[in-house]
Each structure stands twice: as structure tokens, then as C-alpha cells.
């Protein structure tokens, strides 16, 4: 068989991504149709920058979702004779029934670069958004009281936050994300502390809102505690009684260190906004009504701080993606076979002069995802400032 030309490769790529195109068209069609009823999300479709960003982000989200359908080969299978082959090379001598081409070439272990890139999207999107959510939970749970109450508590927390921020990220990763550290159990302790915050946050949230309706309050708090503690046991201690939820030790340490690095910045942002908002009249009104401090923080201040927080959330997912890539680039915390973008770039960079595509493909993928998130944040900022 002849190798494919660039146009054919492009055509076949478009064809492979078919589920993604359908999902994108559906999302955009429905969203634009009902955009007046969808609040800030709907307004996003008034800004070109925001739409481009959203499209890029959703492209990768759908790619991660439909990765099994999109990938042409198993990301770990090596087919002999395909080592460092250029994009569009036909697969010769492989087992019957596999896709006939390596659309974006083979890497130095004769694996399909395209399939690895697609599967890598799943690896990245499994960790980055979740880690950012956790960082926000920690930052909000600590930042609100620090800004609202001030005093010693604030001084201490701010000092600790600055301490973490003054730590060069790369050094922290090198010290934290090593097999030796996993042996000592430090990641488990860190996870035990950090994973407590989401539960704490939700319990406070329900309790402060519904403490006048004990029946509802008890239901919500009980539900949160049951689900939360179940996940907590599974994720932090790998002790899920049902045996469903668990996290491999090397992923846990990556997750924990990324949360640990991001949380102080979120803390500082939330604290700053709280300091500003607590002087508003509606906070004074709530205080006069006799509302408790946690009600005021979580149900008066937090909803009014959502604009900057949503924008920062998008930016922070992008930053987290970059951090995960950095970890992969230095081979920290990932298994050597993992198709995540950072480590594939690292493996590809040694042979850039012979075969540039194994490093270039994941590099462009990572760049487009982060670019999408940044553009999305920019669009959201523009639209939320408008009203």
C-alpha cells in the first residue's frame, strides 16, 4: 500500500473524529437555540472569543469521552516495522483487522502516535478538572473565614499560603512526587487533610442554609456525609468498604501535589474578594437580620464572588494541565507506559531530529486545550463584566 498524502491524512482524521463533530454540533445548536434562558453560559455564545474557546475545550472533552471509538489502535500495542515511521504510513505485517494506517506516524516504540494522543486526552481530563475543583474547595473553605473574620487566623493562613507560594513549583514536585515519599505515607496524610475540605464545605453549605428546616438539613447533611466519607475512604486511604473507589498511589500523589500547589492561590483570591464584599450593604443587612457567619459567607458573599471565581477556574484548569504536563515531562509520578501528553513529549524530544511527530502531536494537543481554556476564560470575563 502507498503511504497517505497530507490531504488524505487530514480527511481520515476528520472521519475518525466523527463522534466529536456530532456532539459539538448538537451542543452548539442547542446552546445557541436556548441561549437567552441559560444565564452566563448562554451569554458566552455572544462572544466570538468565548465560543472559539468553548469549542476547543469541548472538542477535547468529547475526544476524551469517545476516545475508544476515535483511537485507531491500542495505545500500548507495538507493531514491528512501524518505529518512527512518518504520518500516513500503512501498517504492514500487523495482526489482521487493525486499522490500515498509522495516521500520525509511529513513535520510537512503534506505537500509534494518534491513538496515544487521543488516549492522552482522557488521562489529562481525568485529573486536571477534578484537581482544580478540589483546590477551589480548599481555597474557598479557608479563604472565606480568613477574609471574613480576619485576625490571627487570617495572619496564620496567609503566612502558610505565602509559604507554599514561595516554594518553587518544580522543586516541590521533585521533593513530593517520588516513590520514596509514597513509601513514607506523606501523600496519604496530605490527601487525608486536603480531601476533608470538600466534605466540610458541603456540610457547612447545607447546614447554614437549612438549619431552620431540620428535616431537610439532616437529609442533605447525611447524604453528603455518606457519599463524601465513602469517597474519602476510597480515595485517600484506598479503604473503600465496597471496593469500587480507589486511586493508584502514583496518581494520588500527583493529584495531591497539584491541589497543594493550586489551593494557596485560590485562597488568596477568595480572601481578597471576601475582604471587598464584606463591606457591602447586603452583608450588613444579613448581619442585622441575625444570620450566622457561615450563612453570610456561603450564601451571601460566595454567590456574589462567582464571576471572578468562574474565570479563574477556567484559567486554573489550563494551568493545572500545564503542571501535569510538566510532571510528565520530568517523568514524575506517571507510569512509563502512560499515554499522557507530558510524558509522550518527553519521550519524543530525544529524537526530534529524526522523527519530530511523536513529540509535536501531543505538544500541539496540549497547547490547543490550554488555549481553549484561556480563551473561554477571556470570553467569560468579557461577558460577566458586561452586566
Amino acid at each position, binding site marked *: 500500500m502507498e503511504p497517505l498524502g497530507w490531504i488524505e491524512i487530514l480527511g481520515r482524521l476528520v472521519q475518525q473524529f466523527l463522534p466529536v463533530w456530532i456532539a459539538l454540533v448538537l451542543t452548539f445548536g442547542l446552546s445557541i437555540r436556548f441561549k437567552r434562558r441559560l444565564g452566563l453560559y448562554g451569554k458566552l455564545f455572544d462572544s466570538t*472569543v468565548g465560543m472559539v474557546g468553548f469549542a476547543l475545550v469541548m472538542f477535547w472533552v468529547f475526544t476524551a469521552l469517545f476516545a475508544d471509538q476515535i483511537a485507531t489502535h491500542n495505545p500500548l500495542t507495538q507493531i514491528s516495522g512501524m518505529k518512527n515511521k512518518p504520518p500516513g504510513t500503512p501498517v504492514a505485517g500487523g495482526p489482521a483487522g487493525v486499522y490500515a494506517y498509522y495516521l500520525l506516524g509511529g513513535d520510537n516504540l512503534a506505537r500509534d502516535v494518534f491513538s496515544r494522543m487521543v488516549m492522552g486526552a482522557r488521562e489529562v481530563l481525568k485529573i486536571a478538572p477534578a484537581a482544580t475543583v478540589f483546590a477551589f474547595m480548599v481555597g474557598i473553605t479557608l479563604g472565606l473565614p480568613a477574609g471574613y473574620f480576619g485576625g490571627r487566623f487570617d495572619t496564620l493562613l496567609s*503566612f502558610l499560603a*505565602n*509559604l507554599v*507560594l*514561595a*516554594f*518553587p*513549583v*518544580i*522543586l516541590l514536585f*521533585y*521533593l*513530593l512526587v517520588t516513590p*520514596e*515519599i509514597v*513509601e*513514607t505515607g*506523606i501523600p496519604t496524610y496530605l490527601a487525608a487533610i486536603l480531601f476533608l475540605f470538600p466534605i466540610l464545605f458541603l456540610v457547612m453549605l447545607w447546614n447554614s442554609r437549612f438549619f431552620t428546616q431540620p428535616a431537610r438539613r439532616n437529609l442533605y447533611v447525611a447524604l453528603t456525609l455518606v457519599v463524601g466519607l465513602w469517597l474519602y475512604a476510597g480515595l485517600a486511604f484506598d479503604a473503600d468498604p465496597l471496593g469500587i473507589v480507589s486511586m493508584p498511589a502514583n496518581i494520588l500523589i500527583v493529584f495531591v501535589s497539584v491541589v497543594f500547589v493550586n489551593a494557596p492561590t485560590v485562597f488568596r483570591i477568595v480572601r481578597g474578594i471576601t475582604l471587598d464584599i464584606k463591606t457591602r450593604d447586603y452583608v450588613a443587612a444579613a448581619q442585622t437580620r441575625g444570620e450566622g457567619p457561615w450563612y453570610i459567607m456561603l450564601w451571601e458573599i460566595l454567590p456574589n464572588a462567582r464571576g471572578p471565581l468562574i474565570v479563574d477556574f477556567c484559567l486554573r484548569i*489550563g494551568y493545572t494541565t*500545564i503542571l501535569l*504536563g*510538566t510532571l510528565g*515531562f*520530568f517523568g514524575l509520578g506517571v507510569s512509563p507506559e502512560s499515554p499522557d501528553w*507530558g510524558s509522550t*513529549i*518527553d519521550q*519524543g*524530544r530525544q529524537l*526530534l*531530529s529524526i522523527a*519530530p511527530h511523536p*513529540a*509535536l502531536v501531543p*505538544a*500541539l494537543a*496540549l*497547547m490547543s486545550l*490550554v*488555549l481553549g*481554556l*484561556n*480563551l473561554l476564560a*477571556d470570553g467569560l470575563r468579557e461577558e460577566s463584566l458586561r452586566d
Partner: protein
Amino acid sequence: MLMFILRRVATMVLTAACLTFIVFFLTNLEPNLEKVAKSEAGSRISDAEVESWLERNGYTRPIFVRYGEWLGILPGWTGTEPDGRPRGRCVDRAADKANAPRYCGLLQGDWGFSTVFKQPVAEIVATRLALTGILMFWVMALMVPASLLIGVLAGMREGSRLDRTLSTFSIATTATPEYVSGVIFIVFLASNAGVQWFKGTATSAMDGVTFENFFLPVLTIALYGIGYIARMTRASMTEVMTAQYIRTARLKGMSFPAVVVKHALRNALIAPFTVIMLQFPWLLNGVVIVETLFNYKGFGWTLVQAAGNNDIELLLACSVVAVFVVLVTQLISDIGYVFLNPRIRVS
């Protein structure tokens, strides 16, 4: 003002002490020490032998005491060999065993001995830092003017086509981490796939810097920072451009370029100054990545080698330098902000 600086310096010293202690704690964890014992005394020794080796070399004492010794505020441990010769932290290092000093730590200038490079740590750090200094100088020389120019041009007329183009460019650069842009540059500007204008490694730049071997690493580090600083400058510039005194200047008939240069620029550059200073921790990140990618054996490369090979004393020294750089730039940024901005009063 003096009180402010004193308080900042005190906080800084406390922060430095905490951070170095954390690093010391993490590098001196049980498994790391075990690895040291195995690499020094042979990899096949039993657990009991590891235990006794650690005991003999003073690693089993409380962590705070060891930290104090390393810092040089507590006297180093002493003991005797089985054959009666004196041993100890400071005795082992001193040339004159009989008159070894009591204190030997960071504060005395004794940074230890690197197990990877077989050289005193202080020497390694000095030579590597000098190499990274050259890199940083060129990064700054490229990044600061470029980002300020982009920011000012974009913020001068908010919403114009120039603004949109430059803002999109800045967003794109902040979305491209060093390991991505570095790979793209090497592929397209320094390999067979594109044009071969530059060299894909900067190893030869350690002997002599030329445009050919040094531009790509410098550009790679600078690019990631440019977008961020440019956006800050733009935000600050747009804010200044809506101020009353700019309108007054325009209304009294000054030309637009004159207003920008004489009135707006000075006020708009206060915020970017702090941002540039606070970029240093991030630049350190970039330095580590780029030096690894381009094989430039500077400070970042040394840090990676030290961390990868469990070279405890070298890693500690690198951390001290990194923490010091970060904290000093923070201090400069704080003090500079107060000096530059007449609206902020400290007391």
C-alpha cells in the same frame, strides 16, 4: 518605611527558615537516607547494616538537631572510630582533623560535598549559577521590553484591532508552556523538518554565547512570561487611559503619542514592575525545563540531576538558592511597589 522593611525582612527570614526546614525534612526522610547508605556502603547490605551505618554517621539523631547542624547554629556531632580516631560532621570535612571547627553549616559557608559530581557543593552551585545568570540576563533583555511594548500598544486604544490581535497573541503565549514551545521551535527552526537557522541544543553556549546557539532557549523561556506581563501591562494601561488627567491632557490639545508617553506610561508601569519581579519563581520553572530540553548545564539542570540522583546536600543547596531568589524578588517587588506608588502609605 524602615519599620515596614524590617518587618518584611523578618517575615522573609521566618519564611526562609520554614521552607529550608521543609526541604531538609523531605530530603532526609527514612527511604532517602536508606538509599544514601546503600550507595555509600554497597547496595547489598542488610537492613541491620543500613541501620548501623546511619547510626555511625549521625543520621539517627532528631531531625531538628540535624537541621541545626546543617544550618550551622548547632555544633556538629562528634564520635570516635572503633580504632579511636575522632570522627564527626565537622571532623570528616576538615583538612586538619585535630583542629576541626565546632560549627560547620550553611552559615559558615560549608555547603557539603556532592555525591554525583564529586565536588564541593559551593563550587558547583557557583559555576552553574553563573551559567544560568547569563541565560536569565538575555531572557530579561528580551522579555521585559517586548512584553511592555505589547502591553502598552494593546492597552493604548482598548478594543481596537491592534488590541485584539495583541491580546490574542498574549493569550496564545500563556497557553504554551516551555516544553511545548521549545519542542515546536526545535522542530521548525532547528531540524530537518523545517529550516535550520538555529541549533537544537545549547551545550556549546556554555563556552561562548552566539545568536545561533542561544536564541531558542532564551525565546522559549521569555515567550511564556511575555503573555502574562503584557496582559498585566495592558490592564494597567487601559485603566490609566480612562483616567481624568488623560482626558484633560487630550482636551488641552496634546497629541495622542505625547499623552501616552508623557502621562500614561509612567503611571501604567507601576503594576507591571511588581509582576515582573513576581515572575521569578515561574522563570525558575522555565529555567529547569529549558535547560533540560536544550541540555544547557546550568542551575536548573543541576537541580534535576541532584533530585534525580538523590544527592541530598546538592539538592538542599539548590533549594536554598531557589528559595532565596524567590523571597528576595518578592521583597524587592513589595518595597518597589511602595516606592513607586505615591498613593500607598505604609505605617
